[in-house]
């Protein structure tokens, strides 16, 4: 199977491992972003969750795409905790559920999954675009996924466009002021600084794009 046809369970394992590496590398930066408006622990939190996801994913006997995402979801829900853990966990769980029954994920299935994940995050967390949260990266990412699917893109191309949209979404949060979730620690200081959760979304999707791309080249 080539990347044109979709990413199978082993591919998703690789994507998750690549994500864990990317998060480890950026953890300090993510915490730094969180220190501006939050409590400065976001990088530690996500790295903890992704560390577990790395181990659990590797241990899977039957790594279907759904199973890999489900295990990742559990790592966020159980090991990260907090609002962010619940939301990232819900996101991955919805993505995994959407992958259910598919041995390989193509651009259309990915678009469905991202939409499902984004909707869950919004309905659970009640944040709207512009509230300076992970939603500001997820919404454009999901839209890019849908557009790529409609343009019949390969999964690799789709992920590339999704990652770019997520990154732009994350960047856009730096001019926003927070208005959701746990009351902020010092509102003023976060102006000009990206939202850490949105940045994590971008990092994840960039890692997915890069790792899927690697595969197509290999």
């Amino acid at each position: 199977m080539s990347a044109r046809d979709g990413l199978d369970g082993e591919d998703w394992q690789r994507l998750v491992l690549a994500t864990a590496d990317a998060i480890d590398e950026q953890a300090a930066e993510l915490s730094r972003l969180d220190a501006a408006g939050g409590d400065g622990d976001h990088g530690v939190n996500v790295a903890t969750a992704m560390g577990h996801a790395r181990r659990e994913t590797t241990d899977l006997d039957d790594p279907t795409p759904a199973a890999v995402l489900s295990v990742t979801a559990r790592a966020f829900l159980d090991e990260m905790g907090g609002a962010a853990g619940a939301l990232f966990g819900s996101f991955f769980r919805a993505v995994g559920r959407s992958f259910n029954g598919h041995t390989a994920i193509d651009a259309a299935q990915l678009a469905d999954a991202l939409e499902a994940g984004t909707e869950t995050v919004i309905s659970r967390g009640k944040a709207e675009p512009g509230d300076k949260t992970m939603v500001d990266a997820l919404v454009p990412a999901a839209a890019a996924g849908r557009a790529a699917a409609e343009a019949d893109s390969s999964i690799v191309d789709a992920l590339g466009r999704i990652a770019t949209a997520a990154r732009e979404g994350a960047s856009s949060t730096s001019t926003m002021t927070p208005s959701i979730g746990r009351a902020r620690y010092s509102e003023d200081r976060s102006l000009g600084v990206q939202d850490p959760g949105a940045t994590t979304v971008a990092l994840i999707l960039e890692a997915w794009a890069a790792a899927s791309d690697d595969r197509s080249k290999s």
Partner: protein
Amino acid sequence: MRTAKLINDPADIVSEMLEGYAAAYPDIVRLDDGLIVRTEPKAEGKVGLVIGNGSGHEPAMIGWVGPGLFDVNVPGPIFTAPGPSKLVKGVTAADRGAGVLICVSHHAGDLLNAEMALEEAADEGIDNVEMAVLWDDVGSAPRGREQERRGSAGLFFVWKILGAYAETGATLSECKAMAEQVRDNTRTLSASLTSSAHPVTRQPIGEIPDGEMIIGVGVHGESGTGTIPVPTADETVDLMLEHILDDLPYESDDEVCVLINNAGALTVMELAILNRRTSQILAERDIRVHRSWLGSYATTQDSAGFAISLCRVDEETKRLYDAPAVGAGVQFTPPGDSTVDQ
């Protein structure tokens, strides 16, 4: 502000804390797969009480497990609510056949995870689980928008009264109603003179220069408002108590319990001086004090801050409040029951 902590690997901070705490109080609590549970379980047929919360507020809530208090505490990472499966595990551990109430101190993460836990419990066929969402912090949302308020130190009163109530054999829905009733009679406002460092990242949470104070801080150091030069103790209480009293409002002939909670590094000396003014003002307003407590019950690491909490009580809640209770972090001995003759 101190950033160095007496810990080992920051990644082990919560698990090692739980181990060390349970080791100190084996007759009260034991550590069971990451949960703090009562050593002597509650009698069968009574409602189990569970609370999940981020760690870092000790003795809350690991110190509030025991007879007359919680059955199970589900500790999360530092300042981070535990996930849904761990909460469900806590529910199972607390179940004595009469249902389980999950108490939620109102914060985004606690609420989200409790909601997900209820879904997960339902999926697993565990019913007879309810949650009570609790708030008290007048600094976090204005009057009329009480349900947006955060949970803070004043939930002390809910924990205590609810804990005693569950021991009487009240039903699950009665317990939930009692928790909400006490919540609706409770108001808290907090202030802080220093911020604290996150124990894992060692980064300061917020910034308060020496000589400045913030009124309205949250239990994780959250604050929207700016600093003011530290007023006198009396001025501080005057400012804060006016806000609290007008909110419910507490009126003459009301009877209240008082808590002056230490957020961590305030001295007992300061708490007592703050209580002096508090009791003066309450006396001036003809508000009777049933009992007062000064101490570190819910902390924000080592912030030098405090909260003033009032809870309006009636005959039933007074009786429940005075009932004996034994947690590792809080003991209630009924007045008059203090004979020591052997």
